């Protein structure tokens, strides 16, 4: 479910790259289990909305998606672009006037107005699934639609489909965000994420921007022996081989798209140690409120030279823990790990995984009750353009500074009651919405504080049960 401008722009990149990935793997054009995780196979010969074809040749692939925006521009552009046949009109919910960067408009006004419409369309898409395991919501936190209506949809999903996992990819505003009210929108949305999401993958534009620059530098450096394979860039689009033609946020959004593809790779493709989405939630969320996962993707690109030693494999593991590769401005290496997951794709075996865990473990701090808290997955199918890749997900106290900064920016506005009236005059909004939201964020920060306090402790193991001999 893509909500708002950011959500839909990212969503568009996701579907583009998903098609590319499946096309690279699925040479025979047969509709298989892997494809069915994200796409329906529809018989469009009779025109209109045909039946679903569950086996056999691919007829027409339709994304299992809902595109929601309170402005028309972005969605219209998608429908006129190369992906137009992947969506049908029943998957879209649009309006004209937008949410004015106001969480309350998105959540209360449009939420109320479009509730039934959204529920109905969700039900329809769910009915087309044999077995629905997970919802992905893609949105940004700083605006009005993605933030407000997006979290409204999150609530709806919990009410209507309580058994289905809710993974949320949230783009957080960076420090120099040009939307003045983004702290309000973000904190109001955070409360919803705290209470209704199973897992949140927070992402910062600033991090994506830095990664894009790093890749650009590599591509343009022209160093001898460092020619990069164009389609292997974490930032490259499927459709265009020349990066010049991409739209401004495309490179950054491709990174998020790749994140989602790697996250779901082991659920879609085979491997020697499968890792499903419910396993990610199970292993990485030790306490219900602490469900924010910092992600990193490596490698950023592949060199064209095939003769690379396996040292590069180990480098991939090291990079996953470096500050530069995180999709959030955070440094997990110098904070406390509650849990860590490594999802490897391609020609990597269990011994490579073990060797690197042994190698990297001593430099990482794990909480005392989870000293060996590693969740691992091995998927045989690498991403397009690579021979192997790694997605690391960390439940780590390094998210705390991000949340604390958010709280500070919020308080700076709130103390002066700046722009508050825009929110309070919306039906259903009261001062208490704000105080509850900031209180929820404060509580979350406090949880991380308490964990950090245990970091330097002596860590005495609790006494074991005594049995009468």
């Amino acid at each position: 479910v893509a909500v708002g401008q950011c959500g839909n722009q990212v969503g568009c990149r996701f579907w583009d790259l998903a098609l590319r990935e499946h096309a690279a793997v699925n040479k025979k054009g047969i509709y298989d289990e892997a494809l069915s995780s994200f796409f329906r196979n529809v018989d469009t010969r009779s025109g209109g909305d045909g039946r679903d074809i569950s086996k056999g040749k691919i007829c027409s692939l339709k994304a299992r998606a809902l595109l929601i925006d309170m402005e028309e521009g972005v969605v219209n552009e998608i429908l006129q672009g190369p992906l137009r046949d992947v969506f049908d009109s029943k998957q879209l919910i649009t309006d004209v006037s937008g949410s004015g960067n106001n969480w309350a408009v998105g959540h209360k006004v449009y939420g109320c107005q479009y509730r039934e419409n959204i529920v109905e369309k969700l039900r329809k898409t769910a009915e087309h699934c044999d077995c629905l395991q997970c919802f992905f919501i893609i949105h940004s936190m700083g605006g009005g639609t993605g933030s407000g209506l997006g979290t409204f949809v999150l609530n709806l999903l919990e009410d209507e489909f309580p058994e289905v996992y809710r993974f949320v990819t949230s783009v957080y505003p960076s420090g120099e965000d040009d939307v003045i009210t983004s702290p309000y929108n973000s904190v109001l949305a955070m409360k919803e994420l705290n209470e209704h999401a199973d897992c949140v993958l927070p992402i910062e534009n600033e991090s994506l921007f830095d990664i894009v620059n790093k890749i650009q530098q590599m591509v343009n450096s022209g160093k001898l022996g460092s020619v990069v394979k164009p389609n292997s860039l974490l930032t490259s689009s499927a459709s265009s081989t020349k990066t010049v033609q991409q739209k401004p946020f495309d490179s950054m959004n491709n990174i998020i798209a790749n994140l989602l593809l790697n996250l779901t790779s082991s659920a879609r493709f085979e491997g020697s140690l499968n890792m499903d989405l419910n396993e990610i939630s199970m292993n990485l969320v030790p306490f219900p409120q602490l469900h924010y996962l910092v992600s990193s993707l490596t490698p950023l690109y592949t060199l064209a030279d095939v003769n690379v030693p396996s040292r590069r494999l180990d480098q991939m593991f090291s990079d996953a823990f470096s500050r530069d590769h995180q999709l959030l401005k955070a440094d997990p290496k110098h904070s406390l790990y509650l849990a860590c997951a490594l999802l490897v794709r391609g020609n990597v075996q269990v011994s490579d995984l073990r060797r690197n865990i042994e190698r990297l473990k001593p430099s990482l701090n794990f909480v005392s009750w989870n000293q060996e808290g590693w969740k691992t997955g091995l998927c045989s199918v690498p991403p397009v353009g690579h021979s192997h890749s790694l997605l690391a997900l960390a439940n780590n106290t390094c998210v705390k500074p991000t949340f604390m900064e958010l709280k500070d920016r919020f308080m700076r506005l709130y103390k002066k009651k700046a722009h508050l009236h825009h929110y309070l005059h919306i039906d259903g909004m009261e001062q208490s919405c704000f105080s509850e939201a900031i209180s929820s964020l404060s509580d979350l920060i406090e949880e991380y504080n308490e964990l950090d306090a245990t970091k330097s402790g002596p860590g005495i193991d609790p006494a074991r049960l005594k049995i009468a001999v």
Partner: protein
Amino acid sequence: MSIITVQLGQCGNQIGHEVFNAICSDVHGKHGLCSKKENESYQDTCKERFFSEEKDGVPVARAVLVDMEPKVISQTLAVAARTGYWKYDEQSYFCQKRGSGNNWANGYSAHGPKHKDVIMNLIQKEAEKCDRLSGFVIIMSMAGGTGSGLGAFVTQCLRDAFPNSSILNHVIWPYGTGEVIVQNYNSILTLSHLYRSSDALLVHENDVVHKICAQLLNIKQISFKDVNQVIAHQLGSVFQPVYTAESALHYSRSPLGDLMEALVPHPEFKMLGLRNIPQIPENSLAYSTFSWPGLIKHLRQMLIANATMEEGIDWQVRPPCPGSSIPSRHSTSKPLHFNTSIANLVILRGKDIHSADTGSFQDPALYTSWLTPQDVFNLWKTPRAFNKYEKSAALVSNSQFLLKPLDKLVGKAWNMFASKAYIHQYTKYGIEEDDFLDSFTALEQVISSYTTL
């Protein structure tokens, strides 16, 4: 008599597949090194034990495949059929789509009851194909959700439905440095539950097998397939036909029953470890010769010193002299150098078997004081060589082999439990803190029993 294999979860299915591969390749191998008559008898017994006949002549494995997600089973069925030497019954599987999420409670409390009838029906159908049923081998891991939780549930159901059959659980102990973060919780819940319904738990530790691949087999980039093939080889060395001491005229008719009788004299002691030597890279086999005295000597020292493979055995460890004070009741924090046994089974396969002397295994000093070696040492053998090894020796031991790993496991799980981390994921499916406490209590009891041997 036949054995039905129940393969549960990704691990169980991947291993089960390699086991049937190993058995089949052993049977068709030209390295039997025995008389034609002997070989034929071996092949017939093996076929009856593990396969049923199909009209097209391709043997069908006596197996039921269960998984809560579809990818592994569909791969396993396809790859087996492609060999042309054997296959699975295309109907004999059950899978779902959602997986168990590495959640023992999901496997045990949700999937178990929901799919009990379907799964038990499949097993019943396999049972009906057998003339005589020796029992069940259930292959499962402890770390995940399906093998562990659903495995524990299915074992319980099997015990209820087949009260007179032997049930052996082949359990995979996960890598110490995590494959799954909640693996310690899943493991203690599994072990405590299995202890109630299973006859014995035959354990393979991933860390140990990994070392064998690295140091003995010299494999550079070790994959799970490599690990599983070693495990399959070791299991084959136990389950392939042998002559048990009593009936030297025909191969043992009741392999599982005999195994239980030999190794589990007391229900408090069910943890079985497995050692198999030699293990060398296949391309070195032609250049290596082994002697029975050498193999037996190594195997005995591996038992005494608790060595997991033939390299790095500590030869300084000796059994306590009779008459000297028996080592006092150690607390589990002190390292236990000498491995005391409850019962041992040695299985020898290959050339010149009549010259093999296992008298050293009957030394009373090896065993706990309340048992005599005549009762608890067993030797099985066959002149028919196994899987290209001219001579091979296996030791199945009910001893303190698994005491340290078990103690470590319970310690880590307890440490995590004290912080209540992840508990909400289990209570969601009805497994409460009390259930955890029951499991901890049960396992501390097992640890205590093995410690005071």
